[in-house]
């Protein structure tokens, strides 16, 4: 079997296929035609090196691109809601043709926005923390890809929620509805653009072994030593903090009942999110 054929086979075994594999094989073939005695090392090692280095840099790039897209989309959402004052709209008390769809829009915006922000920050944090690593472990790259994918998906859910709110708030002034719809479309476009580097990251995964890391690796320096290694305690404290902050905000705004209700709901959502996604997103120290 020629080196070229062997390399093609090993690249496939390393999970590198399609156009990327054809390109690598073409480049190495060209190199061997220039120097038939070139020492490229065993084909298996070369294939693994490609997988390790490309899988690492692509996962990191996807995380950065995802975070940038979500920052753009998030700014647009904030602008839409900030403009409700000028448009004299008192969300969430709006007469909509379908109150159910309007409420669904509000729920999607709140839930999607929070998940997108949390997962996007976690993905970027991991990429930033491992910015100098030439190769990260396979499980670490999986965590980065999952966080980015969840963040972008939740971002799209959030954008669809904003679009639903804008389309259902037909008593609102025209410019605000247009602004809301245009912003949700622009935000969705930014998120879709970030799916390109993510799909590129999905093409190749490092092979190198190693721990996948957890929340304490990502921002352990922020965690007081007694809480390290206790993810559930951290999640419960964080949820409790959210309850207190939102309840306090309700008191300041003169509606303590509403503030307490939103606080409890948000706190419960935080605990539920941690229970459902904590392991998947590499927050809890279990297998990827």
């Amino acid at each position, binding site marked *: 079997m020629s080196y070229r054929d062997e390399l093609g086979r090993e690249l496939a075994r390393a999970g590198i296929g399609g156009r990327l594999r054809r*390109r*690598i094989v*073409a*480049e*190495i073939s*060209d*190199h061997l035609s*220039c*120097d038939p005695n*070139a*020492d*490229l*090392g065993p084909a298996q*090692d*070369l294939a693994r*090196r*490609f997988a*390790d*280095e*490309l899988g*690492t*840099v*692509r996962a990191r*790039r996807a995380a950065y691109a995802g975070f940038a897209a979500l920052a753009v989309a998030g700014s647009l959402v904030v602008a839409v809601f900030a403009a409700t004052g000028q448009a004299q709209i008192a969300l969430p008390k709006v007469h909509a043709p379908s109150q159910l769809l309007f409420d669904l829009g509000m729920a999607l915006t709140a839930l999607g926005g929070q998940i997108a922000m949390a997962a996007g920050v976690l993905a970027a944090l991991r990429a930033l923390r491992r910015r100098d690593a*030439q190769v990260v472990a396979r499980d670490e790259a999986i965590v980065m890809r999952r966080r980015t994918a969840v963040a972008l998906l939740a971002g799209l859910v959030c954008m669809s929620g904003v679009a639903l709110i804008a389309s259902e708030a037909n008593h609102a002034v025209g410019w605000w509805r247009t602004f809301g719809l245009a912003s949700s479309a622009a935000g969705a476009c930014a998120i879709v653009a970030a799916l390109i580097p993510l799909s*590129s990251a999905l093409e190749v995964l490092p092979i190198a072994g190693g721990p996948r890391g957890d929340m304490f690796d990502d921002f352990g320096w922020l965690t007081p030593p007694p809480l390290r290694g206790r993810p559930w305690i951290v999640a419960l404290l964080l949820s409790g903090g959210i309850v207190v902050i939102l309840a306090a905000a309700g008191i300041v705004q003169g509606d303590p009942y509403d503030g307490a209700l939103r606080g409890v709901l948000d706190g419960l959502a935080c605990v539920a999110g941690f229970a459902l996604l904590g392991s998947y997103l590499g927050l809890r120290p279990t297998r990827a």
Partner: protein
Amino acid sequence: MRAETLKGHLDGLILAVLETEPAHGYAIIERLKQRSGGALALPEGTVYPALHRLEAAGLLSSSWSDGSRRRRVYRLTRSGRRELAGRRGEWKAFANVMEAVLA
């Protein structure tokens, strides 16, 4: 020079040899050998993954050449030039310190 000694410097070396003009993989390796007077005998298998990685990081761009032979030609991007300048500065500072200590 041992490959271990070059560890961590390969990216900077690749960026440096592409500074003047674009080149394909084999030519990059040859330039590294020539410019080092043969001292940099890199394991050739390390160069191609590094080229792909640097491209994925936005420091290089590449395209197939139009000549009779189909070759992937790499060139520095603007980010790559900035990165090279940064690495040069770091290297000079490091070399000065080592020189001061070892000399």
